C-alpha cells in the first residue's frame, strides 16, 4: 500500500480528507466552513511541521512530486489560510469569516483547476 504522506508526516493523515482542495477559493471556503475546533486541531499539528515539510518538498522539487508529496503540499496550502485564522484573527475569526465571501479568489498559481479569468 502506498503511503498517503511522506515519511515523518503521518500525524497529518487524518486531515487530508478535509483540507485538500483544488483552488484558493476552495481553501478559503474550508477556512470558513470547517468547525472552529477542527480547524484549530489541524493548525496545532501542521504549524510546527510546516517548515520542515517545505524543506523536504523543496529538496524533492515540484516536478518530482508523487501523490504523497502532493497531499503534503495541499495541506501546506491549507495552512496558508488556516494560519491566518488561528494566528492573525484569533477570536475575531468568526467575524472576519463573514466578510470574506465578498472578495472572491478567482486565480492563484497553486490552483489545480484554473478558473476562467474573472474580469468580465
Amino acid at each position, binding site marked *: 500500500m502506498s503511503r498517503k504522506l511522506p515519511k515523518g508526516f503521518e500525524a497529518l493523515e487524518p486531515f487530508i480528507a478535509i483540507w485538500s482542495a483544488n483552488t*484558493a477559493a476552495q*481553501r*478559503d471556503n474550508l477556512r470558513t466552513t470547517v468547525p472552529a475546533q477542527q480547524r484549530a486541531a489541524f493548525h496545532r499539528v501542521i*504549524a510546527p511541521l*510546516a*517548515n520542515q*515539510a*517545505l524543506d523536504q*518538498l*523543496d529538496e*524533492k*522539487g*515540484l516536478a518530482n512530486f508523487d501523490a504523497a508529496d502532493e497531499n503534503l*503540499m495541499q495541506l*501546506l*496550502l491549507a*495552512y*496558508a*489560510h488556516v*494560519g*491566518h485564522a488561528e*494566528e*492573525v*484573527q*484569533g477570536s*475575531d475569526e468568526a467575524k*472576519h469569516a463573514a*466578510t*470574506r465571501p*465578498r*472578495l*472572491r*479568489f*478567482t*486565480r*492563484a*498559481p*497553486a490552483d489545480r483547476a484554473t478558473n*476562467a*479569468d*474573472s*474580469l*468580465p
Partner: protein
Amino acid sequence: MNAESKAFEQVSQERVAFLGTRPIPAKPYYDADWFELEREAVFRRSWMCVGHICEVPEKGSFIRRELEVLKASLLIVRGKDEKLRAFHNVCTHRGTQLVEEAQGKRTRFSCPYHMWTFGSDGELVSAPDFEQFHVAKEDCALKQVALEVIAGLIFVNFSKEPEALSDQLGDLVTQMESLPVARATTFSEYVYEIDANWKLTYDNFQENYHLRFIHPRSGGAACGKDNPFGYPAEVDFHGDHRTQTIWSNPDASAPAVQELGFGRTIPAAMEKGLLNTDAGRKYFALFPSFFMFGTPVQNFVHVVYPISAEKSRGVIRLYWVDEDGSASERFGREAIMVTAHDVHCEDTAVIEAGQRGISSGALEHIHMQTQESLCRHLFNVVEEKVHAYQAERNGS
C-alpha cells in the same frame, strides 16, 4: 536598531498646504448627475488599467474587458505583427459584440450575426456579399482605443489623442518598471463588488487613519509606538497622480504563517533580482482609480472600476515572476495572497456604511485631515476636470 532608523516624522501641513483645507462637498460621492459628468470628464479621458501583458503573450492572444463606466467592451489583441492593440468589441457592420469569451487565441474574429470577419490587427478581412454595401473595406476596421504598456500593465484611454501616460508619470515610470510586475508571467487575483461610489471606495485605500480601528489584527504591523496610526512616511504629488511611502515599523513582528510565507519566497525573489528596487515601500496611486503597492514580494495592483454613482467593483492582483519554482514559492505566494486578502476583506463593510451615510444626504460636507491629503488631492483633481468639462460644454 540600525543607523537608519530615526523617530517617525509625519507629513506636515505645509507639505500639503497647496491642496487647501476646505471641507469637501458630499454630493459628488453619491449624486447620479455628478457621476454622469465624471464619465465624460474623467473616465473617457484618463488612462485606465485593464490587464497585463502576460495575459496576451502570443500572436492572436486576446482578452475581453468590460468597462461599465463607459458602457464599453474592449478587445485587447496581440496582432500577427506582435503589436498589442485595443479595439471596441463592436462589429462595424451593425454593432454586434464580436467576442463573448473572456480570453483566448485566434487569428480571425468573426461576427456571429452576418459573419463579417476581422484580423488580429482590426482590419476587415472578409464580409459575405460585400459588393452590396456602399462602403470600402478599409473604412470598416474595428474602432481602436489608445493603448500603452507601463511595467507590463496595459492601460487604455478613450481620448482621440491622449497625452502619453509615461509623459504624465515621469520618474514614476522607472520606479514602476523596477518592480516584479514589469517582468510578471502570472498572478493571483481576487475581486469584489461594492455598494459604494468609486471615490469613497478608493479613498479607503489611500488613507491610513482607519488602520488601527478597522484592521486591529491584520494591520498590526503597520502601526507602532511613535506612529500609532501608521501614517505614511512621505507623500508625493505628480500632476493628477500621487504616491505615498509606507512607513516601516522597526518593531513589527509577523505571525508564524506570514513569516513563513514571506520568508519562503525571498530566496527565489533574490535570485531573480526582484529585490533590487528603490520603490519597495512606494504605494502608487495613479489617477483615476489605480493602486500599486511596490513591496517586491507582495507587488499588488488594485483597480476600482465604477459601475454607477453608488456601485463599484474592484480587482486585486498580486503579480509573480515565473511559474512556481518550488514548494516554498507555491506556499509563499498563497500565504502572501491571503495576508493581503485578509486586510482588504475588513474594509468593504465600513466603506458601504460610509456610502449609506453619505447617500442619505444628511451631510453637505465631509472633512479630510492633513494625513488624508491623498483623498483631498483626488477630489481636487476630479472636481477640476469636471468643471473644465462643464466649461467646455458651455462653450466658455
